[in-house]
């Protein structure tokens, strides 16, 4: 898949198919899409030089009740799981202009794993079926928040 924002449409479709196979509900489907979308958007916009035609590989593993996505890119080394990235406290007079993507990805995924292998970034996102229809915000708190 070429690393351009136009590819996000196909990504959404692929995530949707995986969700159907796994039998995930609406909320879980949404947070899976959000996590995968944010991470891929970052590879496209930050991982590769602008206007370069980088390549992104997608791998998906699905069984009843869970979906795993592995995103492989050849861009800048970047670990989306490292560093404290609390949501910036929003002051109406001094709003942050960005920095929401990684926070949303980390809050949405049930697991987020990163490894650098040679020239590759390998990022894994896992979402499991949740017991309740709507997962409370606190229950999705990433490890670094507790």
């Amino acid at each position, binding site marked *: 898949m070429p690393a351009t*924002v*136009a590819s*996000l*449409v196909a990504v*959404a479709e692929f995530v949707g198919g995986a969700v159907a196979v796994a039998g995930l509900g*609406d*909320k879980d489907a*949404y947070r899976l*899409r*959000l996590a995968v*979308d*944010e991470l891929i*958007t970052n590879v*496209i*916009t930050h991982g590769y030089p602008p206007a370069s035609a980088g390549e992104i590989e997608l791998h998906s593993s699905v069984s009843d009740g869970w979906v795993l996505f592995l995103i492989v890119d050849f861009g800048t080394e970047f670990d989306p799981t490292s560093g404290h990235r609390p*949501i*910036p*406290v*929003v*002051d*109406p*007079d001094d*709003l*942050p*202009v*960005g920095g*929401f*993507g990684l*926070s*949303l990805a980390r*809050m949405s995924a049930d697991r987020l794993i990163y490894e650098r292998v040679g020239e590759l970034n390998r990022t894994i996102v896992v979402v499991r079926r949740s017991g309740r229809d*709507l997962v409370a*915000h606190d229950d999705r708190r990433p490890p670094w928040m507790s």
Partner: protein
Amino acid sequence: MFQADLITSGDTVTIQMSGDLDALSAPSFHEILQQVATRSPKKLCLAMHGLSYISSAGVRGLVFARQKMGDDMEVVVEGANENVAETIRMTGLQHAITIRESFSA
């Protein structure tokens, strides 16, 4: 696909949004907001009834709206579905923007 329709009524501008607001569609949303900002409305209403998805790229648009429109101007999000509203809340933006949700049983 993302679509936005502008409705002006008195001092209020309403943007009726539908489809997916992600990094692909965010630039055109941004453009619309820029256009609206030049009209200096009293109130900006973002009607999200038809919006099925928003990512941080879309949230950035909301931040931009809040910043571009003057301090005395109200920015209201309405009709967002549970997932979209939750995503906006996850960014803490409800402190700067009014989010009006409707629930029906």
